[in-house]
C-alpha cells in the first residue's frame, strides 16, 4: 500500500516538502519514520510528532493505504 509524506520546517529543508512510499500492511508511523531516518541520518536528532489526515497520532499508529503522514519537528508557533 502507499502512503504520502509531508514534511515541515527543518525536515522540509532536509527531505523536501512531500514524498510517497510503498509500505507493508501494518506499518506504523514510527516504523516508517525509522526507515526514513536510516536513509537520512541527519534528521535522526529531530524529536518528531506525527499527524495522519491532519490529526495528531502516536508513533504506534498503524497506517492505512492512501494515508497522508505528516512529520513535524517541535512546533514553535506564537511569538
Amino acid at each position, binding site marked *: 500500500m502507499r502512503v504520502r509524506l*509531508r514534511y*515541515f*520546517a*527543518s525536515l*522540509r529543508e*532536509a527531505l523536501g516538502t512531500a514524498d510517497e512510499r510503498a509500505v507493508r500492511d501494518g506499518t506504523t508511523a514510527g516504523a516508517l519514520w525509522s526507515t526514513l531516518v536510516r536513509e537520512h541520518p*541527519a*534528521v535522526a*536528532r*529531530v524529536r518528531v510528532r506525527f*499527524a495522519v489526515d*491532519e*490529526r*495528531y497520532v502516536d508513533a504506534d499508529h498503524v497506517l492505512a493505504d492512501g494515508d497522508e503522514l*505528516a512529520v*513535524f*519537528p*517541535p*512546533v*514553535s*508557533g*506564537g*511569538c
Partner: protein
Amino acid sequence: MFEIIDDAIDPMRLLAAVGDPSAGASVLFLGTTRNENVGRRVVRLEYEAFAGMATKEMRKLATQARRRWPLTRVAMVHRIGVVPVGESSVGIAVSAGHRTEAFEACHWLIDRLKEIVPIWKKEHFRGGTVWIGEQQGGPPVPATRSKTRRKAVR
C-alpha cells in the same frame, strides 16, 4: 474566526469577532517579533504552518477553553511568512462576562497554541538562522555553516 493568514494581523478584526452584548471583558493578546532573543539580534522571523491542521487545532483549543471557562467568544489568527520586528505573528482575542476568565483563557490559549498548533518559526538573526524549538543540545549555527547546521547542532 480561526485563520492562518500571510499578511498583517488586524487587531480590530479580532476584537470585532469577539464583540457581544453579553461580554463585559475582552482580552487581546498580540505576539510580536522582538529585536532580541536569548542574546541574539533578531532581524526577522519566518513562520510556516500546516495550515489546514493548524486552524483545526486552534478550533479544538477554543473548544477546550470554553469547557474550562465561561467564555463568550474566541478568535485566533496566526500569520505565516516573514514577520518583521515590531509586527505581530499571532493574535488571540477572548471575550467573557467577566475579566478573570478572559485573562486566564487568553493566556492559556497562547500557551497551548505554542505547544500544539503545527506552526514553525525560523529566526533570522544577525549572523545566522535557527528553527526555534530544535536548538536544544547546541548553539545555533552561523549562516556560513547553515548547510551543515543539523550535524553541527547535534
